[in-house]
């Protein structure tokens, strides 16, 4: 699904959080959002998802301008937001419809992929931070969404698990050709996953630069090209602060 933001701004009680964002996303593209803390990345994702409808400007999804909740979209929030009264399995099946057995089988597949097989019956309060985040990831991916909005999905994971889940995300992307917008603070991650990286800056946040990552997937995490791009991004982030 295609996605377009036209001059999107958001103001909270007179304070502008993000201003004048324009962005065109092709179907099946993966976009990374980078920026300092508090520059409005989450705010943008919320606007795209339709959870927040009080922004200025227009957001077009598949050619339709709307402020409704996009139910073909899935959102991994910055916090896990598990439902505390459901166990791991039920949290993952939460967004699914259909027969109980089918739902559970799908969920168990994804739990396996995020390394939580065998933890189905734990309740959220019994999970570690990273485990909770992985449940949230499984819950979002299991619905095979057409648009995926990810807000720092892998921030609480160790390097090893993180890489695994990045690959899982690419698998899902390949299978369902989802359009993905992800916020991340990990530049390596952005390099590895995204077609384009959008850098936000300032308070209120504005788009500072867009960097295209022109490399076929699967990419080599250690490639020269990516290293070069990374230093460019780092420069852009830091120098603009100086």
């Amino acid at each position, binding site marked *: 699904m295609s996605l377009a933001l036209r001059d999107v701004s958001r103001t909270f009680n007179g304070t502008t959080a993000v201003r004048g964002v324009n962005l065109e996303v092709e179907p099946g593209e993966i976009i990374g959002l980078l920026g300092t803390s508090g520059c409005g990345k989450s705010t943008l994702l919320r606007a795209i998802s339709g*959870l927040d409808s009080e922004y200025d400007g227009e957001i077009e999804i598949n050619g339709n301008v709307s402020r409704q909740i996009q139910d073909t979209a899935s959102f991994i929030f910055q916090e896990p937001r598990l439902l505390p*009264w*459901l166990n791991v399995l039920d949290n993952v099946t*939460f967004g699914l419809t259909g027969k109980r057995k089918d739902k559970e089988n799908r969920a168990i597949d994804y739990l396996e*992929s995020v390394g939580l*097989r065998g933890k189905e019956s734990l309740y959220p309060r019994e999970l570690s931070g990273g485990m909770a985040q992985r449940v949230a990831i499984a819950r979002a991916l299991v619905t095979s969404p057409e648009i995926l909005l990810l807000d720092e999905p892998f921030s609480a994971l160790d390097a090893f698990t993180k890489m695994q889940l990045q690959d899982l995300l690419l698998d899902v992307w390949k299978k369902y050709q989802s359009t993905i917008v992800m916020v991340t603070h990990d530049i390596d991650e952005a390099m590895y996953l995204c077609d384009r990286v959008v850098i936000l800056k300032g308070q209120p946040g504005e788009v500072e630069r867009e960097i295209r990552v022109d490399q076929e997937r699967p990419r080599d995490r250690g490639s020269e090209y990516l290293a070069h791009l990374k230093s460019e991004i780092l420069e852009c982030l830091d120098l603009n602060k100086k």
Partner: protein
Amino acid sequence: MAEQQNSTVSGYASPAQIDIKQKGKQDSSKKNKGSLLQTVLYGSIIPVALIVLWELLSRAGVVPSNQLPAPTTILEKIISLGQDGSLWGHIWITTYRVFAGFIIGTVAAIVLGAVVGFYKKAEQLFDPMIQAFRSIPSLAWVPLFILWMGIGETSKVVMIAVGVFFPVYLNIVSGILGVDRKLIEVGKMYGLNTFQLVKRIILPASLPSFLVGMRSGLGLGWMFVVAAELMGASQGLGFLLVFGQNMSSPETILASIILFAIIGKLSDWVLKQVEVRSLHWQDRLEK
């Protein structure tokens, strides 16, 4: 790599593991039994002490028996009621009325509470009136209910339902308002409609508040029994109480009070069990 990790993980849920878990459960159920006994024991200390003190004071003549008969006298009264068979009638009919009224009141409160908690318009329309009705004493409803519904069981059950309604309603509305926006957003993202949202997010999330409301409501249900049984009853604990007052018979009054306390406590205990069971997911501090 992934496979390797998974195998570690599934080793974690191996049969041996499950055994350990079940053992854990048995332990805890054994512990529960022990602690139930303990709970009952602890809980009885103060009432028993009070009753013994009261008995002693009565026997010593400090408390005149025409005002406050000794516990044994009251017990005799209850036993004599039991022997002539009327006791069970009183208890049964009152319990039935409270139960029926409780169901009706709770259902009404859920429906109205959910609507008011969820729609601003509904809140503006209904809430002010409901809040005003909330402070009307049960006795005040008696003549009106007789006028509207006659003196059959209907008016009695509805009267109790009225008592149950208000605390349940209040707690539901406030519970709904207190539900974390973050969780509601999760539901919305997964395309739940309003009804599903209420059922799958809002009710579970406001369950603690809802359950308190139910317990409060049940308590009020028992209180409203007296007003209910002023409407043409010739049986029931409320009837017994008023009858005792008309007859200036302290034993009867106190017997009915004690029966109210015991049965009320039992019914509350049932709800408390429901509460404990359905809120096990809460991340609360163990005392």
